[in-house]
């Protein structure tokens, strides 16, 4: 059945390839979101600029709010905070998430702190989402790449300084938001600082029930200084600090008392006909997770006294990850029709995660603490070379070929990790190395002024993550199993095909794309009945293993229609289908999701109504803890008004999300925990 569907879709792709006519622009499959000033050229095919332009009415959108509305992107939700990005069904180690090309890794073994959770939209200039294997500029991966470009101090001769302060409120979670940004320019120096403070209490769902442990509080500060000694070169330094505390995860048995990230980077750029960019960076993530706020009283049987007894249990799971890296990138247009990009990079990541359990039976002295390293201390050093050549064959035809090799060295930092894994009869070498590669070809052809097609194909491999290689009893609250790494996992491989069809007229833009990945040695947890579970609440053990094959198909449709200058309609449909081993549905795949929005903008007033809906997901994998998710539709309205008083510019907004107070959750929401009910949002921004 599924096979037929795939076949049919391919026929369709093939027909569209042969039958259509198009636009020249960078040929890579690349969607870019400009978050601050949004520039949309009418002749451009639809891209995410338009999307964010559409949703930027609320200055307080979290990064998750924005990424959720990008094509190809979905979010895995474990709480109100730190949603994990998924691109076309790929997530975690299958994606590259970078900041200005810098590698950064979360420190939580349970993926509770994706890198995106340490970045705020105010820090960013743009988000670039590349789908598929061709996105290997920042590292070999099989699913795609998300790169977040940090805000840069602009060299603007008309203005020597700017400042803005904004405050906002969300009724459902009593969410308070404060946002500040300041900039200063003098001579060849430019400086900026931006920061956010957010505090949310527990929110209520559509049934007016409070969702406990959905609170969070965070502070984020980013500062950058740029020096332009002349017209062609520049130096830039960035520092970013992000601190979240008291973050609840309603879908998990634990919360985060502290999640802290620091990032420092120094960059040199020189732009003549060739462009040079060199960067050195360091970042560190500390993630402290525990269950001190949860009910820790259990009733256990067969313990010291041999009958049911009450037990107090506490778990501490701190994790730390730091990354030091550098890269050099050169863009050389070596003749009139060829442009070469070469990038060499290296990074070293040092990760460790520990777990200590404390237990006490009522009336007894506490038991000896139980300690293990869920990620044994490990250094991972990766050296890569990326080469891409764009070949402009004609005004209508562009070919892009790129490739990358990554040489990966994993080095265990202590004997502890080796000894720990001897339990599973592994004699682990201290050092393991592996080469992964990627090779891609993409062609863009413009059939006519309004129609263009991009066809891409590629092959890529990716390294297993630390957790997949050396994870030690990682509890997965979704399927209820403890996960164990496999030191001898093979690289995951993907054969990728994609077609993007774009149609552009003065008042309508349509983008339809389809991606297909045939994955070999797909990495997932396979039940091992021989190994007993670690916890009394775990169902069993799953060992990360290479599954021979898996398939993922995605199709996205985006339409932006502006019948009048002041009125526009936007439609986004996302669909993903995945299967493993030729028959079983791949777990955690979202159903067809649509969002339709109408925006009216005239003079200083903007009004927007939006409907988000998803079909039911009935293609589920029960083995992996999935249950069917019902369909839903929610409505949001927003309004914005701009005015100025003397030198001050004001921007005020009022909106209602989940207008009809619908109780709903999405398929990727862990624990089937309802999303927030009706909420009134207010904000006011003052700029000088």
């Amino acid at each position: 059945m599924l096979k037929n569907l795939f076949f049919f879709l391919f026929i369709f792709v093939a027909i569209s390839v042969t039958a259509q006519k198009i636009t020249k622009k960078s040929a890579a499959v690349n969607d870019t979101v400009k978050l601050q000033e949004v520039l949309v050229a009418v002749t451009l095919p639809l891209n995410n600029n338009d999307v964010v332009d559409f949703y930027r009415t609320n200055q307080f959108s979290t990064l998750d709010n924005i990424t959720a509305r990008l094509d190809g992107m979905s979010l895995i939700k474990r709480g109100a905070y730190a949603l994990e990005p998924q691109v076309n069904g790929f997530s975690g180690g299958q994606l590259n998430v970078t900041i200005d090309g810098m590698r950064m890794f979360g420190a939580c073994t349970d993926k509770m702190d994706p890198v995106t959770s340490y970045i705020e939209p105010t820090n960013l200039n743009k988000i670039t989402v590349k789908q598929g294997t061709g996105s290997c500029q920042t590292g070999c991966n099989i699913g795609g790449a998300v790169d977040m470009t940090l805000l840069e101090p602009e060299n603007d001769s008309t203005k020597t300084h700017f400042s803005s302060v904004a405050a906002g409120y969300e009724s459902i979670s009593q969410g308070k938001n404060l946002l500040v940004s300041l900039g200063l320019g003098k001579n060849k120096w430019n400086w900026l600082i931006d920061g956010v403070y957010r505090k949310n209490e527990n929110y209520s769902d559509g049934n007016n029930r409070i969702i406990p442990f959905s609170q969070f509080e965070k502070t984020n500060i980013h500062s950058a200084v740029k020096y332009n000694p002349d017209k062609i070169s520049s130096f830039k330094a960035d520092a970013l600090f992000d601190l979240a505390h008291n973050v609840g995860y309603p879908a998990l048995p634990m919360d985060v008392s502290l999640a802290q990230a620091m990032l420092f980077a120094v960059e040199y750029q020189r732009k003549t006909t060739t462009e040079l960019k060199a960067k050195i960076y360091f970042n560190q993530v500390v993630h402290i997770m525990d269950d001190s706020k949860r009910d820790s009283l259990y009733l256990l049987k067969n313990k010291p006294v041999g009958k049911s007894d009450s037990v107090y249990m506490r778990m501490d799971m701190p994790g730390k990850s730091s990354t030091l890296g550098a890269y050099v990138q050169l863009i050389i247009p070596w003749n009139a029709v060829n442009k070469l990009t070469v990038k060499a990079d290296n990074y070293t990541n040092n990760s460790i995660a520990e777990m200590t359990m404390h237990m006490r039976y009522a009336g007894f002295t506490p038991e000896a603490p139980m300690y293990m390293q869920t990620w044994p201390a490990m250094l991972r050093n990766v050296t890569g070379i990326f080469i891409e050549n764009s070949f402009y064959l004609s005004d209508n035809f562009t070919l892009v070929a790129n490739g990358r090799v990554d040489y990966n060295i994993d080095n265990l930092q202590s004997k502890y990790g080796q000894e720990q894994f001897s339990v599973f009869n592994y004699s682990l070498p201290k050092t393991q190395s592996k080469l992964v590669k990627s090779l891609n070809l993409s062609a863009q052809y413009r059939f006519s002024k309004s129609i263009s097609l991009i066809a891409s194909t590629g092959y890529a491999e990716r390294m297993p993550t630390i957790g997949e290689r050396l994870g030690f009893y990682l509890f997965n609250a979704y399927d209820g199993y403890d996960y164990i790494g496999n030191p001898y996992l093979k690289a995951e491989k993907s054969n990728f095909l994609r077609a993007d069809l774009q149609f552009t007229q003065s008042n309508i833009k349509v983008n339809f794309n389809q991606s297909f990945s045939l994955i070999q040695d797909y990495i997932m947890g396979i039940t091992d009945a021989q190994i007993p579970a670690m916890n009394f609440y775990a169902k069993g053990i799953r060992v990360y293993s290479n599954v021979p094959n898996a398939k993922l198909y995605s199709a996205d449709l985006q339409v932006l229609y502006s019948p009048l200058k002041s009125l526009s309609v936007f439609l986004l449909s996302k669909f993903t289908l995945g299967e493993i081993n030729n028959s079983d549905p791949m777990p955690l795949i979202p159903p067809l999701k649509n969002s339709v929005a109408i925006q009216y903008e005239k003079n200083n007033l903007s009004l927007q109504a939006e409907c988000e809906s998803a079909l039911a997901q009935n293609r589920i994998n029960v083995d992996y803890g999935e249950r069917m998710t019902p369909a839903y539709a929610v409505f949001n309205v927003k309004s914005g008004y701009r005015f100025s008083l003397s030198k001050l510019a004001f921007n005020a907004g009022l909106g209602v999300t989940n207008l009809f107070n619908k109780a709903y959750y999405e398929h990727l929401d862990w624990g089937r925990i309802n999303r927030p009910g009706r909420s009134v949002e207010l904000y006011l921004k003052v700029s000088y």
Partner: protein
Amino acid sequence: MKTIFSKILYILAISVLFASCNKNPDITPVNPLAGLTKLQEGYALGASAKVQIWGKKNFFMGYNKLTVVLLDSLNLTDTIKDAHIHFMPVMTMGMGMMTMQHACPIENPDEVPVNGVFPGALAFVMPTSTGGNWTLAVAVHNHKYDKEGTANFNITVDNPTPSVMSVFTAQAADSTKLVLSLVEPVAPKVGMNDIEFTLHRKESMMSWPADSTYTFVITPEMPSMGHGSPNNVNPVHVGNGHYKGKVNFTMTGEWKVNVAVQKNGNTISNNTYFTITF
């Protein structure tokens, strides 16, 4: 030509030998008493020897590795390097007419010392109590002077928690009384550990020979978490009543290693276990 060649080879071989000797820094003598404390000291009258007993800690109920040092009683500095040593532990219970005596499993040291000392072992089957006291006689046949004598010690045997010995009666027709002692792991760690037992049989009050005819099935578990560990290797007999295998601990904390002692495939122990906390 050929001879020159072989000479060169010879010289090369010799130099390699020297080179490898030079690289070996292990010239410092091993101190056989490192980490041990002197538990008892006394003269073996008639043997011209002073007997010292060294151990990791005071005598305890369980398998005690003991090291005997014999000093020449003439100058008390020379050690005696050739001697026969016999342990004779006796527990005396009760008072007056009701007195009862028994010994415990013994591993006497070899005639030839190891690094100048005589390692042996005793497996005390009960602790010192108000109703019972241990004495330890060490008979020495000093081969240096060909003299014999015995040193007598009144010792205290502690009762450790958790217990490292199980004395039980086999659930079988012969109702043999067995002594199971935990020898290893002494310093347990997360990961794979050596596990070693000794098994002795009570033949009479004074005779407790080693027994090699039993088999073991071990199942470690962490009682508080309700889980065990994979890939354990059941101990098998390696000689002199010692059984060796592997036990896996996935984390620190309190572990309970359940031991099923079997004879001809039938479990003859009842709920025997050792608690290991680290």
